[in-house]
């Protein structure tokens, strides 16, 4: 992966698809959670994966940075290509992969340390130790996550004392601080109130200028507000995918129509 990072010049990537899921199956033990998924994720766009609970959308997302490898029963078949290289290839360094494909979780998960350290931790992992650079990068990340003005005087305060919405923005700041190419959001607003949700949504839209974003949501409104493309999943399979405006207003598949009209969900 280190070699890969060197050889690929980010600006000159010809392929506009940064991630490509190909004939992908995922299992928890014997249970099939994702069946024969094929998706292309376009660079600097927001792709929403939508569907009712248990449809496999989180599993698909959590396969993209191999965070599901932590679950002992989890198995996959097929490929997920990141810059045309299969991330499940044995020679991939999964830790470096996760630095380039960041993730924000459903529940805000600040580390039990100060606000500053929450962001500095990831920066130190990628080898930044210079104090001034750390301070600058922390500030920059907090500004990008629209949190700087609220916390600039309390950087040494425990991150656990922030509100839920602030914690989630801190988690976003922590993720963007190490400058990944892709950010995976796993229902990032489902634990938040409407005001905090609205802030996170507009933040995600802003972030898409710099990052490629994949967001899992069961909320049709959220998908329509922020996403460029939508993938609709049902019972482990991708039922329909396409530009969000088209998929939401003119769904071709009957199950998609039922979901959008609230008959299933």
């Amino acid at each position, binding site marked *: 992966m280190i070699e890969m990072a060197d050889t690929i010049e980010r600006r000159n990537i010809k392929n506009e698809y940064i991630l490509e899921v190909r004939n992908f199956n995922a299992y928890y033990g014997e249970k099939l959670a994702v069946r024969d998924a094929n998706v292309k994720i376009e660079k600097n766009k927001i792709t929403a994966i939508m569907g009712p609970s248990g449809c496999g959308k989180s599993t698909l997302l959590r396969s993209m*940075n191999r*965070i599901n490898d*932590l679950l*002992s029963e989890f198995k996959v078949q097929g490929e997920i290509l990141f810059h045309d290289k299969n991330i499940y290839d044995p020679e991939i360094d999964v*830790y*470096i*992969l*996760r*630095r380039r494909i*960041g*993730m924000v*979780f459903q*529940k805000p*998960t600040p*580390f*039990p*340390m100060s606000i500053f350290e929450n962001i500095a*931790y*990831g920066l130190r*992992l*990628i080898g930044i130790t210079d104090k001034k650079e750390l301070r600058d990068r922390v500030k920059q990340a907090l500004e990008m996550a629209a949190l700087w003005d609220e916390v600039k005087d309390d950087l040494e305060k425990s991150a656990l004392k922030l509100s839920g919405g602030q914690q989630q923005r801190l*988690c976003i700041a*922590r*993720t963007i601080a*190490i400058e990944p190419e892709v950010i995976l959001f796993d229902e990032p607003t489902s634990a938040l109130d409407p005001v905090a949700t609205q802030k996170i949504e507009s933040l995600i839209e802003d972030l898409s200028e710099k990052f490629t974003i994949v967001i899992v949501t069961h909320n049709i409104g959220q998908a329509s507000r922020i996403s460029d493309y939508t993938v609709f999943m049902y019972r482990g399979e991708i039922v329909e995918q396409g530009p969000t405006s088209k998929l939401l207003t003119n769904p071709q598949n009957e199950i998609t129509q039922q979901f959008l009209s609230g008959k299933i969900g």
Partner: protein
Amino acid sequence: MTITKTNGSKTVENKKARIALKILTYFISILIVFVFILAFLPGLKYWSWEFFSSFPEDQMTGGGIFPAILGSILLTAVSLVIAIPLGIFLGIVLSEYNLSYIKFAVTILSGIPSVVFGLFGLGLFCITMNMRTSILAGGLTLSLMVLPVISSSVYEVMRSIPRELREAAYALGARKSEVIFDMLVPSVRNSIITVSFVSAGRVIGETAPLILTAAVFYATNLPKNLLSPVMTLPTHIYFLAAAYGTKARWMAEGAASVLILFVILVYTIAFMFRREKK
């Protein structure tokens, strides 16, 4: 919503359950108070400077228990210096790496009676390794005995860390060792210290393994080094009760209350760490 759903009979059931639990709590509290009154208070009247500072005299009818106190402190110190770091390390490794066979073995070991550990220590340390009856042999035996207990408790603490914290650290690209030592262990540091001390509290009162590996009936001298035998509080109480009869009863009572004081001290230290966390 939930209020309207609660029907009358459930409330009554709740009330009954609460009363039952309350009665049980009082019952257990009274038991503890009884133990305290019967085992701790009778010995208190023998506490004096002489009792703490001198050797037993006149067939255990006079003097004090200084060598037993010293022996217990030394043995506890030796065993904890060995067992706590190893136990914490083992508990962390067992929780973070998939070593189910070793975990199973550790669980079984923590249930083995202490006298069996005593026999094992007698064979391995005292005889085979030629340590004879000594502080070192006893300390090693005690640390072996308490090691699985400490590591099982630490294992449980590590497992209680929410999955989200692990995943969040891995999602930043942290390696396994970084996740464990930068994130997981610091987040439960005080709990680990508390459970280690609580598990280690067992060591202070252990009798059987010490009779076999470290303790003597009566020592005329203080221990010179770690290879010397010692008197200890629990073995002293046992010998007094078993061999000296009513003449020495006072000394057993006094020693028992000192032993209880030690246990209270260790547990107080342990729980101070837990309180600090909050």
